[in-house]
């Protein structure tokens, strides 16, 4: 079996596992998984930029929120139905990430991180400033009756799970394929050594901009899906905290691995969920675990697995 066949098997296996999980896991965990899959899409988008292109953004919450509000506001204010509203969400994230990418890519390294952070902060404040439309921090509910896509009631647990699974699978497979393509490999080259890549004749700026837009759009799709599947849009999702989350998920799961984002989200979710059962000081446990992971699993969970066991892993 070649490495690429193995990777394909792994990817399909993950999807099959998630499919089966719906039938075997208790309701609670099925519910969690729907949410985890949507957040994993967010993490996949983030990983595309951070893990594969090597750009550390702290502004992804804005892309997530662009998708979320693009969908939410177009439904709330203009009574759009789900499918066109999803398109609006996707388009908003695409436009926002293109503009911010264009400006922020004038910088690099830590400056890139700070510029994206500041644009996101300005975006967050803008959501609050237009509170009469967005309801600011409080946000708004997307009514159950509106959350219907192609006749499917997405507020129903089963429909929600499979909608999340489809979205996850599409993004997961598409990104896994993309990073193996010449374009994706060039991004890796830029991550490894941008100057070398440029001096091989690659237009690294254009590549990075494309990466920001793809990454931001995927994040936005996750935001739109979150609003749609869980019925709520709010400014909390545009705060810095929600830019740090995907970074954390990706680093924990394994940056630059295809399954790292999913693993990172699952790990972080259950770390909080299980430790909060034991103690109200669950953040303390989470903190200690994070520190231990950096000490003993520096490549993230999937990254360590690749380093130690499955060298072929994508």
């Amino acid at each position: 079996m070649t490495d690429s066949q193995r990777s394909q098997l792994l990817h399909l296996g993950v999807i099959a596992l998630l499919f089966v999980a719906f039938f075997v896991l208790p309701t609670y965990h099925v519910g969690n998984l729907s949410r985890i899959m949507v957040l994993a899409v967010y993490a996949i988008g983030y990983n595309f930029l951070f893990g594969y292109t090597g750009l550390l953004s702290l502004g992804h919450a804005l892309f997530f929120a662009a998708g979320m509000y693009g969908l939410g506001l177009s439904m709330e204010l203009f009574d759009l139905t789900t499918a066109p509203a999803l398109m609006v969400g996707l388009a908003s994230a695409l436009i926002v990430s293109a503009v911010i990418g264009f400006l922020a890519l004038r910088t690099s390294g830590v400056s890139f991180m700070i510029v994206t952070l500041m644009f996101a902060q300005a975006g967050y404040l803008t959501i609050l400033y237009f509170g009469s439309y967005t309801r600011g921090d409080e946000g708004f509910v997307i009514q159950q009756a509106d959350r219907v896509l192609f006749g499917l009631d997405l507020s129903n647990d089963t429909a929600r799970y499979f909608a999340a699974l489809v979205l996850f699978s599409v993004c997961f497979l598409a990104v896994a394929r993309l990073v193996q393509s010449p374009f994706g490999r060039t991004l890796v080259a830029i991550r490894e050594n941008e100057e070398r890549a440029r001096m091989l004749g690659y237009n690294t700026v254009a590549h990075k901009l494309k990466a920001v837009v793809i990454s931001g759009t995927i994040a936005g799709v996750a935001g739109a899906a979150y609003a749609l599947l869980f019925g709520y849009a709010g400014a909390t999702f545009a705060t810095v905290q929600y830019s740090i989350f995907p970074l954390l998920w990706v680093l924990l799961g394994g940056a630059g691995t295809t399954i790292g984002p999913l693993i990172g989200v699952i790990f972080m979710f259950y770390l909080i969920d299980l430790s909060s059962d034991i103690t109200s000081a669950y953040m303390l446990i989470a903190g200690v675990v994070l520190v231990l992971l950096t000490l003993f699993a520096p490549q993230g969970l999937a990254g360590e697995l690749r380093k130690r066991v499955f060298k072929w892993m994508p």
Partner: protein
Amino acid sequence: MDFGPHLLLASLEGAVTAAILALTAMGLSIVFGVMRVVNVAHGEFYMLGAVIAWWVTSLIGGHPAIGFVLALGIAPLLVGFLAAAADKVILQKINYDPDRTIVATIGLLYIIQQTTLMTFGPDARPVQPPFNTRIALPWFEFGDAGFAMYWPWGLSITSYKLFVIMAAIGILTALWLVITRSKIGLIMRATQLDSETALAFGVPVDRVYMWVFGLGAGLAAVGAVLVVPIQQAHYLMGHDPLLLAFITVIIGGLGSLPGTVIAAILIGMSDGIISVFFSPTLAKIIATLVVAMVLAFRPQGLLGRTAH
């Protein structure tokens, strides 16, 4: 209020913000400059400074000035030692790898925040300023009756806020002297320029890193002790100063200490002054975008050097 007095008041408030920001950002700038690591827990060291200040002052009775002066000595020391220990136990072990440092300091942030929540509690707690006289300020105008001085409604500052500005200037000057004139400063600068060569010349780079990390955290704590009689200690108070300090350091130019001070003044003052012209939230949005644009069009920061 008339435009002139309003602008004066906003500038004074901006100066207080700038003073605190300069101290906090300076701590981050030194760590950044010398060690090249992103310390996400910097804001938590700031918060700890404020919380320890509250703790010290609430233990000491008598005139508030006694507790305050003690806090100004104790809090930065304790925070500095804690940070140095964290450096030794965690950051040194992961070799200051950029990505891992981010995760580790996020972990540290959780630990410090939760521990504070469990011990100090969720309430905002005030510390009494050592002195706090309201000083009404006059304004001048040329009216029909010629040059006249009057006392506009609300135009005032407190003696403590003036003290904060002076104290920040004093501390930063002292720090500048230490870095440029003393042997410790020389060692720090040598390590910053080239840690490998410094190591070859017998500089104990690990120890330098440890104490630089401690010093950075200590400076944040100093800023917090100064601010806590104005703003109260709260377990979540480290968040915004962290972001602002980061922005300041980058705008100033990585590793440039004078740049950091200039950026702090610029950001603090513009935060105050822009608020005169726009509605508050809009002013914040504009100030944030302006600073982001400055960075986008001058990526090396104000005093940073270009690559070529």
